[in-house]
C-alpha cells in the first residue's frame, strides 16, 4: 500500500510506460475499444429506451380499445354469428363494474373500419377523410397536440352537438393554402358545414390514428350519421398502477355478460391493449440494455486480456531488465508491484480515454438525431453507476491479469534473467 502512494513508484511506472510507447499504445487501444463499445452501446440502448418512452408519451401507457364482432358460439338462445351491438350506455356499466378504469369513452368512426370516408369539400378542393366521433375525455387519454390558437372538442360542443371539428395536419395542408389560418374557417363534411376549431398533429390516439382525419363531437356524429345509441368501440384508460391485462379481461367479461355472449367466445369481443404492447416494447428495450451491458463487459474483458497478453510478452522482453533490477536490489514484491501497477495504470488510462470518446460519440449521435422525432432515440446517457462499475471491473481485471505476468517476472531467477540475451 505504501508503494502505491509513493511518488518514486509512479516515476518508475511512468518511466517504463513512457519509454515503451508502442507497447503502451497498442495495449491501451484494446481496452479503450472495449470501454468505448460498452459506453456507446449502453448509451445507445438508453437512448432507444428514452425514444420509445417519448413515442408513447402522448398516449396513456395503459390504454386499451375494445370492440365487438359477431359471436362464434351460440349462447343464451341466440344463434351463432349474431352481431353484438355495442351501446354507448355500456361505458357507464363498465365504469361502475371495473374500478381500475380511469377514463372510458365510446367512439364512432366512419371510413376507418369500412364505410366510405366522408367527402370533405372547401371551395374547389375536395377529398375524403375518415371521421371520428369523439368525447372530450379522449384528450385526457391521448394528449392531443393541437397547433397554436386551436383547441380540442370540449364539453359544450358535446352538449349542444356543435358542428365543429378538429382536423389532421394533412387535412389542413390539403384543404387550406399555406398562408391561410384554418381556425374559424368552415369546411363541408358530408354536405354539412363544420367550423374548424383546431388542427392536430399525428398522434397515437388510436392504434389506427393518422394525420389525415377529422374529429367531431360524439353527439354531432350521432346526429350526422344517425348512429343512435350504438358505439363502434371504447377507448379505455386504466389507472397507472392497474394491471392492464387484468383490466382488459374484466372489460371483455363485463361486455360479454351485458350482451349475453358465451364466456368462452373469444371472437365476439375484440380488444387491443396498448399497455401490454408498451410493456413488451419497454421489455425489449430493457433486453437491449442488458445485452449491451453483457457485450460491453465482454469487450472490456477481451481488452483486459489483451493487456495481460501484451504485458506477458513485454515481461519476456524485459526479462533482462527485470534481472538487472533484481541484481541491483529490487525485491520480488517490488518487481511484482511494478508490473501490476503498470497493468492497472494502463487499464485505467485506456478506460478513461474510452469513456471520454464514448461520451463524445453519444453526444454527436444525440445532436444528429435531436431534430428527428420519428426515430425512437432520445437523450442517450450512461448512468454513472454503470460507468463507475465498469471502471471498478477494469481495475479488478487489470490487477488480476497483471498477476500473471508479474508472477512470471519473479519466477525467473535473477541469474537466469541476466544471462538472457
Amino acid at each position, binding site marked *: 500500500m505504501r508503494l502505491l502512494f509513493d*511518488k*518514486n513508484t509512479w*516515476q*518508475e511506472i511512468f*518511466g*517504463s510506460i513512457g*519509454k*515503451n510507447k508502442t507497447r503502451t499504445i497498442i495495449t491501451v487501444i484494446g481496452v479503450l475499444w472495449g470501454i468505448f463499445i460498452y459506453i456507446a452501446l449502453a448509451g445507445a440502448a438508453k437512448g432507444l429506451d428514452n425514444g420509445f418512452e417519448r413515442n408513447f408519451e402522448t398516449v396513456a401507457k395503459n390504454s386499451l380499445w375494445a370492440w365487438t364482432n359477431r359471436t362464434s358460439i351460440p349462447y343464451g338462445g341466440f344463434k351463432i354469428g349474431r352481431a353484438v351491438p355495442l351501446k354507448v350506455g355500456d361505458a357507464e356499466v363498465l365504469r361502475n363494474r371495473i374500478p381500475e378504469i380511469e377514463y372510458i369513452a365510446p367512439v364512432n368512426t366512419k371510413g376507418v373500419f369500412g364505410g366510405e370516408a366522408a367527402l370533405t369539400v372547401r371551395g374547389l378542393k375536395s377529398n375524403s377523410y375518415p371521421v371520428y366521433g369523439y368525447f372530450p375525455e379522449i384528450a385526457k387519454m391521448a394528449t392531443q397536440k393541437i397547433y397554436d390558437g386551436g383547441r380540442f372538442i370540449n364539453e359544450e360542443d358535446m352538449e349542444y352537438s356543435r358542428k365543429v371539428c378538429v382536423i389532421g395536419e394533412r387535412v389542413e395542408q390539403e384543404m387550406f393554402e399555406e398562408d391561410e389560418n384554418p381556425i374559424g374557417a368552415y369546411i363541408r363534411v358530408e354536405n354539412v358545414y363544420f367550423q374548424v376549431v383546431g388542427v392536430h398533429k399525428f398522434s397515437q390516439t388510436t392504434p389506427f390514428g393518422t394525420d389525415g382525419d377529422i374529429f367531431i363531437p360524439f353527439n354531432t356524429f350521432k346526429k350526422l350519421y344517425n348512429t343512435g345509441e350504438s358505439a363502434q368501440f371504447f377507448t379505455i384508460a386504466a389507472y397507472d398502477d392497474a394491471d392492464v391485462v387484468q383490466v382488459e379481461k374484466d372489460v371483455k367479461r363485463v361486455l360479454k355478460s351485458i350482451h349475453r355472449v358465451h364466456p368462452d367466445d373469444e371472437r365476439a369481443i375484440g380488444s387491443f391493449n396498448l399497455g401490454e404492447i408498451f410493456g413488451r416494447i419497454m421489455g425489449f428495450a430493457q433486453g437491449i440494455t442488458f445485452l449491451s451491458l453483457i457485450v460491453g463487459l465482454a469487450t472490456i474483458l477481451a481488452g483486459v486480456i489483451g493487456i495481460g497478453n501484451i504485458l506477458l510478452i513485454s515481461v519476456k522482453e524485459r526479462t*533482462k*531488465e527485470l*534481472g*538487472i*533490477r*533484481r*541484481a*541491483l*536490489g*529490487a*525485491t*520480488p*514484491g*517490488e518487481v511484482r508491484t511494478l508490473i501490476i501497477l503498470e497493468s492497472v495504470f494502463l487499464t485505467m488510462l485506456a478506460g478513461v480515454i474510452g469513456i471520454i470518446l464514448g461520451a463524445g460519440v453519444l453526444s454527436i449521435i444525440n445532436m444528429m438525431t435531436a431534430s428527428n422525432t420519428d426515430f425512437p432515440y432520445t437523450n442517450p446517457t450512461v448512468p454513472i453507476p454503470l460507468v463507475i462499475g465498469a471502471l471498478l471491473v477494469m481495475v479488478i481485471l487489470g490487477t488480476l491479469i497483471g498477476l500473471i505476468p508479474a508472477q512470471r517476472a*519473479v519466477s525467473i*531467477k*535473477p*541469474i537466469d534473467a*541476466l544471462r538472457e*540475451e
Partner: protein
Amino acid sequence: MIEIRDLHKSYQMGSNSLHVLKGINFKAEEGELVAIMGSSGSGKSTLLNILGMLDEADTGDYILDGVKIEKLSETKAARYRNKFLGFVFQSFNLINYKTAMENVALPLYYQKVSRKDRETKALKYLEQVGLKEWANHLPSELSGGQKQRVAIARAMAAEPKVLLADEPTGALDSTTSYEVMDLIQQINDQGNTILVVTHEEDIAHMCKRIIHLRDGVIVEDKKIDQVRASEYVQ
C-alpha cells in the same frame, strides 16, 4: 570482509550432476583487489554468482562482513544485494531506456532514497568515472568503455561493501580495458573491496592478488605486485 569455507555447488543437467565447485576456501580482507582466474568451466562465474547472492551454494559457509549468508528468501537476498554488493557485468547490463544518470540512480531507488538525493549522488559518481556530461544520454549513445564506466558508477552508487566484477573488460578492446581497470584501481585505492573475475592475464596482474580456479578447486592463491593500469593510459 569475505570468508568462504568449503563451498560446494553442483548443477543438475538432465540426469547428470555437474559438480562445479568442489570445496572452495578463501578469505578476502577489506580493501583487497582480487582477481579470480580460470578457463571457462572452471567455476569462476558460479563462485561470483554465489558471492553475489544471485545463486546459492549447496553446502559450505559464506560470511560477508560478519553476516552469515544462508537460506535467503528472494526478498532478503535482494535487500542484501542492495546493501552489500555492487555488480559490474561483462555485457554492462544497463537498462536501455534509462539515461546514464537514471541507470546509476536505480540502486538508490531500491534503497528508498529520494529522487533529488538520487540524482545528486548519481551525478557525483558519474563525475567520478568522468561521464558527467553524458548524464542525460541513453546507453545506446555511449561507447562500450563509457557503458562500462556507467555500470561501475552504478555499482558504486549504492556504496556497497564489495564490488563484484564479472569479466568487466571481456567486451572491450585493450585500450578501453585498461581505462576501465584504471578506474577499478582508483576505486580500490579509496579502500573498496573488489573481486574481478577474468581470464586475461594482463587484467589479472592489475589486481593485488590472483586466485586460480581449475575444475572447481583453487589451485593457486598468491599476492602479486600490482601493475598500474594508468601506465597504459594516456
